[in-house]
């Protein structure tokens, strides 16, 4: 059984550590643009990872009540669903989906 101090420590992640990871991921993203690498398969997962780190640790979703995750996830699902469906329907030429 966790002591109160262990509970407090667990619910306070290493904010500076997360900041460093976010910074490194951003540098990697910028670096990718200067390299002959496919951008979408590399940059999109990196962006999603950064967003997840902010949501889970800075917004405390990982340690908080699940109802908050549910409320946020509902919006995300609707938004991402909208994005994916409209990009497929009206795909810009650069994506070459048609």
């Amino acid at each position, binding site marked *: 059984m966790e002591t109160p101090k262990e*509970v407090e420590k667990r*619910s*306070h992640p290493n*904010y*500076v550590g997360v*900041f460093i990871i*976010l*910074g490194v991921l*951003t540098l990697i*993203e*910028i670096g*990718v*643009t200067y390299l002959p690498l496919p*951008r*979408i398969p590399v*940059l*999109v997962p*990196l*962006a999603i990872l*950064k*967003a997840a780190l*902010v*949501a889970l640790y*800075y*917004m*405390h979703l990982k*340690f*908080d*009540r699940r*109802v*908050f995750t549910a*409320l*946020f*996830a*509902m*919006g*995300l699902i*609707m*938004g*991402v669903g*909208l*994005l994916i469906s*409209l*990009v497929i329907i*009206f*795909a*810009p*030429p*650069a994506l070459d989906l048609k």
Partner: protein
Amino acid sequence: MMNENITSPSGETPSMGVDNRKLGIWTLLGSEAVFFSALITTYLVNRDKSVVGPFPHEALDIPLTAFNTFVLICSSLTMVTALAAIQQGDQRGVRRWLIATAALGLVFLGGQATEFTMLANMGLSLGHNLFGATFFTLTGFHGTHVLVGVIWITYVIIRAYQGGVTKTNHLAVELAGLYWHFVDLVWIIIFTVVYLI
């Protein structure tokens, strides 16, 4: 579990066991996720469809925007540090870190104003082409959200100086922080989708 101070202003216990104000903020953030998804989608599907320039690859300045992104990520760190400070009862710390967050927000807005000016000098505007319309709508709304966040944080700073933010009553800091982190999260997506891809 976070100390959520779930007693409502009227003294009633909320039926879901969480503070209604926090529930309300997360509902807002869910709706904002749909809102920004719509703006990002509109930008994406119209990105290569402008008839006249300037076009994205010749107009957008990655180094300036990368600095702006770094500033906003720093501001998320200072915001969460402010919350951690007041959770320990550190009144000076919460004021200091909130001021740092608001200051970084203003630096970001300055960077956006600089970029908008550079783009305007290239002839880009809301009505000039599809790129201008979708880009300025998306980043303009995001910038407005940042401005609202700075004003909100300033209000919390004033409350902190008045003694209205304590170790047992700091929901104001937490809620402002949630909004601020969301604004940073949206920019993370915008930076990647608009500037890098």
